[in-house]
């Protein structure tokens, strides 16, 4: 059967558009199931490996790929040819709509992070070695680095001891984040005794999330009466 059906030979069964539509379904499934892009050669190999493989040529495959491309016009995915072959890809437009899919919940800082930050805030200026002395364990470089990156701490000098270790202190950005005017506004340990009053007093920063959609959520909960009964049964 091979590559190019010669016009002369009528014996050669020529693939009809019906066949091409069938092939397109197969190619679509193959591209969606494959982890990597597939080249025409790979597609040909896979097509010929089918249990009852109808003979297929590369030009048949190109026809099928064209059908898929046209079919994608009104979909959120498109057929894309990249260096190593063809693959399905979410359109740029749609990708922007899918932000909610990949929005990670912000990670939480470790206990080590909080303790280190607290020591820097309350005992500044302080060296890493001194933090380690109090905590009884080594302080990971990652923790210090992430605080420096957030610009919550800075190097305020060097202790005049062997090795000249850096001394850390908090920044203005740190005060801003916690809505503090000066370090004196940091709560004292004594204040911890009454958690309730603490919470009121502190005006803890709310998570500002501009993108929350109050109207949409309201709309959703409007329907919840009727919806919930459904979803109970469903899930």
């Amino acid at each position, binding site marked *: 059967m091979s590559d190019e059906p010669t016009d002369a030979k009528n014996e050669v069964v020529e693939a009809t558009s019906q066949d091409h539509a069938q092939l397109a379904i197969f190619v679509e499934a193959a591209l969606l199931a494959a982890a990597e892009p597939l080249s025409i050669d790979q597609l040909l190999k896979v097509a010929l490996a089918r249990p009852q493989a109808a003979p297929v040529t590369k030009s048949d495959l190109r026809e099928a790929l064209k059908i898929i491309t046209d079919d994608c016009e009104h979909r959120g995915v498109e057929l894309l040819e990249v260096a190593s072959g063809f693959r399905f890809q979410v359109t740029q437009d749609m990708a922007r709509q899918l932000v909610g899919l990949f929005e990670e919940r912000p990670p939480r800082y470790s206990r080590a992070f909080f303790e280190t930050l607290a020591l820097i805030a309350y005992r500044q200026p302080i060296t890493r070695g001194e933090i380690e002395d109090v905590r009884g364990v080594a302080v990971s470089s990652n923790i210090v680095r992430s605080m420096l990156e957030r610009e919550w701490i800075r190097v305020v000098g060097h202790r005049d001891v062997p090795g000249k270790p850096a001394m850390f202190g908090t920044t203005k950005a740190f005060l801003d984040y916690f809505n503090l005017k000066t370090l004196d506004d940091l709560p004292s340990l004594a204040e911890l005794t009454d958690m309730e009053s603490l919470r009121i007093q502190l005006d*803890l920063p709310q998570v500002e999330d501009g993108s929350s959609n109050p109207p949409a959520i309201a709309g959703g909960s409007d329907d919840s009466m009727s919806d919930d009964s459904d979803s109970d049964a469903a899930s």
Partner: protein
Amino acid sequence: MTSPAQSEMPFAIVEGEPVTQLPQDLYIPPHALKVFLEAFEGPLDLLLYLIRRQNLDILDIPIADITLQYVQYIEVMQELQLELAGEYLLMAAMLAEIKSRMLLPRPVSEDDDETDPRAELVRRLQEYERYKKAAEDLDELPRQERDTFDVDAHMPEQRTVTRLPDVTLQELLVAFKDVMARAQMFANFHLQREPLSVRQRMGDILTRVNADSFAEFSELFDPQEGRMGVAVTFIAILELLKEQLIEVVQSGGFAPIHVRGVSGDDADAEQTISEIALEDD
């Protein structure tokens, strides 16, 4: 009921040929027999095979015949030096016991099944067969990677906004309190570091475990001693293990860990069981 004549029943099929006798002069490739015998998932599976192969009624098992066949399998396995799970020998003993009880005159209420010595065996066989079948059904369900495949479209690169964790002042304060409290603890610890020496702890542990009885691993630790105390105990246990003064045993993956002192050998329970089984033959 068919009376199963042993001579007609091959106890193994090797390369298509039925084998009705123990291989004595005839050479059978041991690996072939091994593969066949290893296909059984245990004594219940082997028994079920023997019963089903002869179309026997599971509710009315001819115990004498089945026991004979079963024991022959066990012997072949032992001859081939297959690693024979203790459960096989236990089952042989159980069959032998049922067989002997069947020989005793039955109580008057003949039809009362409760008194049938085979009842418990039948119950176990049925239950096992039920889940054996369920396992086959499960295996046949269409499943990912074999019968269907996940599909995926590539997601174009997005400028992802990595959100940074939120921190409250309260969390900071609590962390400060914790770390200061711990520093306090460390200060205390400095005063009493001496009594927590590893060597002394090793001695303490050795007096608590002895060769005759196990001590539970977790009981060796005293939470009251704090983290350092626990650490010292742990180091002491490691040291004792290294010096082979104790052994640590866990009966299974998630079972509790036990510790005991090392001494002579353990009695071989399997030996006794296999003697019972063969004795009865």
